């Protein structure tokens, strides 16, 4: 074969190779604006047998799942719930900080106090330099002294701290359920009352156990680190609240209460309707025959016109 023929053949081969490579790497680029893209997507879903409503739901689900759009309240509900349950803990921590600061002023953050009986009454005696402190300036206080109680020192102080935490939990629970009712169309006042009742119940049970356990554990100590009781109350109280809420199926219980309230409401409505009907009937009876009505009212035999 001549050189010319060889080069022609190889050229043809090369052309075929190029053609094949181009053919295999052919892509169609379609430029669409957002409206055209949505239209295209809807058509593809339609061809797959989905109705328009189903396609809209499908798009919503994807967007929610990818967090491009969100039902913010529903999305953050559990996070808010967890966060808000820690607010009473924060309040107690602030109190703890105040006590620690006060003790530090007196010379030592972990200063001890002693409980001694004078004239048959228990007194708290603080160690350290009383004059340097700003709140607890004395060296000796009655355990029932409001200042001592407000600092969570002694048995009464522990009880006061627990009470404060309980009230705070009730306020938070009520606020949380109010938001739920405002933002969730399906929630009604029954759910609000049911939910708050359960939360109050849990807080009461947990606070009661924490109060008793901590007071018996630290309240009876003759000498104790002043910040100790508050920390113990904060921690045990929080743990027991969390534990009680986990042990009880609180949601089922709240739903049962709210359904019970709905039943009571329905019963009242039905009774009111019955009363309204009866009143109307009596009114009609009176209008038709006033004299006969008065006779019947007092149970006197009457032989006149009957309603």
């Amino acid at each position, binding site marked *: 074969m001549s050189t010319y023929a060889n080069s022609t053949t190889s050229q043809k081969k090369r052309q075929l190779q190029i053609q094949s490579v181009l053919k295999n790497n052919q892509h169609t680029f379609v430029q669409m604006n957002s409206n055209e893209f949505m239209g295209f997507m809807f058509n593809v879903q339609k061809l797959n047998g989905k109705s328009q409503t189903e396609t809209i*739901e499908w798009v919503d*689900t994807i967007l*929610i*799942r990818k967090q491009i759009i969100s*039902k913010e309240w*529903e*999305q953050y*509900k*559990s996070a808010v*719930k967890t966060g*808000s*349950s820690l607010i009473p803990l924060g309040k107690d921590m602030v109190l703890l900080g105040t006590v620690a600061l006060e003790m530090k002023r007196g010379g030592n953050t972990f200063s001890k106090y002693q409980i001694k009986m004078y004239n048959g009454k228990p007194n708290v005696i603080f160690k350290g330099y009383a004059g340097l402190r700003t709140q607890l300036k004395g060296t000796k206080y009655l355990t029932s002294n409001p200042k001592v109680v407000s600092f969570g020192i002694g048995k009464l102080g522990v009880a006061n701290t627990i009470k404060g935490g309980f009230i705070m939990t009730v306020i938070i629970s009520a606020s*949380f*359920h109010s938001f*739920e009712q405002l933002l*969730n169309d*399906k929630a009604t006042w029954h759910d609000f009352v049911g*939910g708050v009742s*359960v*939360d109050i119940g*849990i807080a009461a049970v947990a606070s009661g*156990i924490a109060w*008793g*356990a*901590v007071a*018996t*554990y*630290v*309240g*009876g*100590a*003759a*000498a*104790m*680190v002043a910040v*100790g009781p508050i*920390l*113990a109350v904060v*921690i*045990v109280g*929080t*743990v*027991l609240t*969390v*534990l*009680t*809420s*986990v*042990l*009880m199926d*609180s*949601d089922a*219980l*709240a*739903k*049962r209460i709210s*359904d019970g309230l*709905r*039943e009571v409401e*329905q019963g009242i409505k039905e009774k009111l309707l019955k009363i309204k009907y009866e009143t109307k009937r009596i009114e009609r009876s009176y209008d038709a025959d006033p004299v006969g009505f008065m006779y019947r009212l007092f149970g006197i035999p009457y032989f006149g016109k009957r309603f």
Partner: protein
Amino acid sequence: MTYINTQINRVITIKQGVLYISLLTLCIVGCFYTLYDEVGMLNRVYEGAVLLKVRIVVIPLVLMMPALGVLIWGITCQILPNFTVHSTKRGVFFIILSFPIFVISLLIYNWQIMSWLDEQGYSECSFYSGASLGAAKIMVNNPYLCIEEGYQVRIALLDWFEEQYLQGITPTIDMVTTKQEQLLLAYNERFDLL
């Protein structure tokens, strides 16, 4: 640091002490029972269960049980009484130390478990969960199973899901929708909401 190793007079009655010891013991037993339940629930992921009731706080809460144990021990010592300030201080210190561990483990566990469930294809369904502080997180492996109208009948619907799981039936979207509609109709009829 010198400790005041004072012997303390008993300030509580035996009855009182026994009551709190029993309550705290019950709490510990309850916690371990819930832990067993929770592990069982998480194992359902491997079985491809369509719905899970997750309580993220249970596993980290176990770390706080020794603290309750210390409290029981402290109260027991109060009853005996062989209680010293030094031992009280050590007990309180132990309770204090276990709390940050609990909080840190809760944060890490929450992040890990939610990521793992997300990887397994589960997403949270807030319509099946109420607003109570202790309500469990409901996770579904198909977003279509999370029906907004199911909120009012969520407890009955969750019971139905549990029944289906126990019978070995995997509910389809149609089955769930039909059941939800039935329950909602019955609910509306019961409370005269139609």
